[in-house]
């Protein structure tokens, strides 16, 4: 009888162990779901990053060399805070699985020929730019990255959206998103 009880206990433990993990998904599945929904790069994400950097550097509106956004991660390059010709690179994220949470930086980068432009919260309509780019990219595409930068000294900032269907990517410059 005792051995039967022990066997039943072992079987129950194995059954429980085999059940463990029910209701969880992998990071790849979450990424796929975010892509099916459009890519996850939104105005809210970019605004939160701009606001965080502006607050940290005490500059509002924020002078910016470039903004680069991917899923749950935004990198903002600003002129060096100490007035040197170099640049400060700030990273802002909403997930440790996708590069880190919160604001990190600044990392120091070299000089850039591109000029700066001022950005404040609410200036950039990334949602509209993403929707336009996805329409241009065709069905089944999602926004892979968004870049906002001046192509050269004196030029207006351009919002470039990379859309992909997983196999091919195309870059679409969206006007009027600022």
């Amino acid at each position, binding site marked *: 009888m005792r051995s039967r009880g022990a066997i039943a206990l072992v079987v129950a433990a194995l059954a429980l162990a085999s059940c463990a993990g029910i209701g969880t998904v992998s990071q790849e599945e979450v990424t796929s779901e975010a892509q099916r*929904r459009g890519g996850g790069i939104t105005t809210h*994400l970019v605004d939160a990053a701009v606001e965080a950097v502006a607050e940290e550097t005490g500059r509002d509106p924020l002078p910016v060399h470039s903004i680069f956004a991917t899923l749950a991660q935004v990198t903002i390059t600003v002129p060096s805070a100490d007035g040197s010709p170099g640049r400060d690179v700030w990273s802002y994220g909403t997930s440790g*699985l996708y590069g880190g949470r919160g604001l990190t930086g600044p990392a120091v980068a070299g000089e850039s020929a591109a000029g700066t432009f001022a950005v404040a919260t609410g200036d950039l309509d990334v949602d509209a730019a993403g929707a336009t780019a996805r329409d241009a990219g065709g069905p089944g595409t999602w926004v892979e990255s968004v870049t906002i930068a001046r192509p050269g000294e004196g030029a207006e900032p351009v919002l470039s959206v990379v859309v992909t269907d997983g196999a091919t990517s195309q870059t679409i410059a969206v006007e009027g998103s600022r």
Partner: protein
Amino acid sequence: MRPIWRFLIGQAVLVVALLSLPWLLLVVYPGVLELTAPVLCPAGQPDARIVEYSHTTHDGTSTNDTLVCLGPDGDLTEVGSWAPLGVYFVGVFVGSEAVVLPIQLLGIVRRRRRGPRPTGPPRPVRVPPVISLRGR
């Protein structure tokens, strides 16, 4: 037993049960942490997923679960592991107390209304027999 002891023992049993049963449920079904999304997920990202991921440290590879909130455009925010666990156990505790506490209080009130237990006639006191040591 005094009512306060009954109450405290009831609470202790509840705490022990809370430490074991919800943990067991959590081990078998970590997806139960999705229930914490209405409290922890930011506005506009209502869809919760429990993501299982592995990371390597100098001690080896460990597997963790973390709550990720998704918005309609695929925007996501990772809440982490500890906050959902905390909210889950607080929720279980509050829910359990909502059931157990009224029952315990009802028991106390009933016993108070009944008053002290009726006591029977006093027991006869046994008196040890007196031994006479008078001389024969």
